[in-house]
């Protein structure tokens, strides 16, 4: 008789815990990540998602990898980013926004007050009583949009707007294998 080869679950290699979040992002990096298509099934053999827009987990636990999409544009972004930094061994700035502020940082050309005024008070079609939202429930915007490395230390950067699915795949495979992620020329783009 063959011995019973069933391994007790607690002796299996632990899955890496991965958290993801979109700060001042467009969710395009998450969409591009999902573009790895059926490779996602292979991936979940090795990772388990913690807090992420793809899960229902509200607060982040201790994780191996945190993928951050988007720059930092308001006070809540700063809070979330610091919490991610405190909970993730490896933090990755994912996409152009997280790396250099991205297109949202084009608002840095303008005065914040006049922008809010233009959108919530001066725009045609608004009702006469329209005002700039001021409920304390809402996070205040920062004067400027910032890349995430200006707020917390970042371990790796995954460029692209968004990074391609193959770039995500290659990057995560390197990280999971314990290698320094290396995209190579073919997967490197900023646009």
């Amino acid at each position, binding site marked *: 008789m063959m011995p019973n080869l069933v391994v007790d679950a607690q002796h299996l290699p632990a899955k890496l815990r991965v958290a993801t979040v979109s700060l001042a992002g467009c969710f395009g990096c998450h969409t591009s990540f999902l573009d790895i298509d059926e490779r996602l099934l292979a991936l979940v053999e090795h990772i388990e998602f913690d807090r992420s827009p793809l899960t229902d987990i509200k607060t982040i636990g201790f994780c191996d990898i945190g993928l951050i999409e988007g720059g930092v544009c308001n006070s809540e972004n700063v809070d979330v980013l610091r919490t991610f930094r405190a909970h993730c061994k490896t933090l990755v*700035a994912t996409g*152009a926004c997280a*790396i*250099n*502020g*991205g*297109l949202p*940082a*084009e608002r*840095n*050309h303008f005065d914040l007050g006049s922008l809010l005024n233009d959108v919530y008070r001066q725009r045609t079609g608004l009702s006469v009583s329209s005002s700039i939202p001021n409920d304390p429930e809402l996070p205040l915007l920062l004067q*400027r949009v*910032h*890349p995430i*490395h*200006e707020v917390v230390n*970042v371990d*790796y*950067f*995954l*460029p692209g*707007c968004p990074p391609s699915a193959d770039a995500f795949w290659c990057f995560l495979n390197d990280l999971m294998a314990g290698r320094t992620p290396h*995209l190579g*020329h073919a997967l*490197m*783009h*900023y*646009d």
Partner: protein
Amino acid sequence: MNSSADIPVAATGENFMLDGVAVDFIPGETILSAARRQGRYIPHLCWHPDFDPQGSCRLCVVEVNGRSGSACTLRASAGAVVESDTDELNDQRRTLLQMLFVEGNHFCPACEKSGNCLLQATAYEMNMQDVRFEEFYPQRPVDASHPDILLDFNRCILCELCVRASHDVDHKDLFAIAGYGIGTHLVINSESGQLGDTNMALSDRAADICPVGAILPKRRGFVTPIGQRRYDLHRVSDPNTQEAS
């Protein structure tokens, strides 16, 4: 105008060593032009084969007989030992590129030059995955006063190719560099400082020499499909790839 014009055309058979490989040169020729002529890539931004060297971008700095200098201004000498493709020099180039990226607003995702941009292609070549430094986020207004040409000064890397082209080829002297330190910037030589008040034409050499997205023709953005742009097809180090303009 053309730096090769005053150089004797016959090679003497003399050569220098570039990363261990012999490179022939014409007496008087710089290290960069001799290397480039023979398909050997040395990273550069402000150098262009049609113009005198400038020496401002520092990307082409190499070690010549153990001392560093810019390959675009150093004349080749027989038997010189030149090192270019070393980890140390490439690290230094990556840092220079990061400095240029944070100094301007290089939001490639919406730039019409993306894929055709020498700065971007060189950053890919040097494996630049991040910018590390704090962003300057300059706030220079664009100049859209000209009917056919748009200027975005927040992308300008001060290579002075437009200055040289306008002076040497177009004989119009429409561009100049003004200011000091980080305030140094490109200016237009017209009473109002606006490009629209000059006699610049789309056919001027200065209109298509810009290696980045600072000087752009109007109404012609995003014409080339992704995958067919200059640096989609060939990486910048490819000997067959010409300068961006």
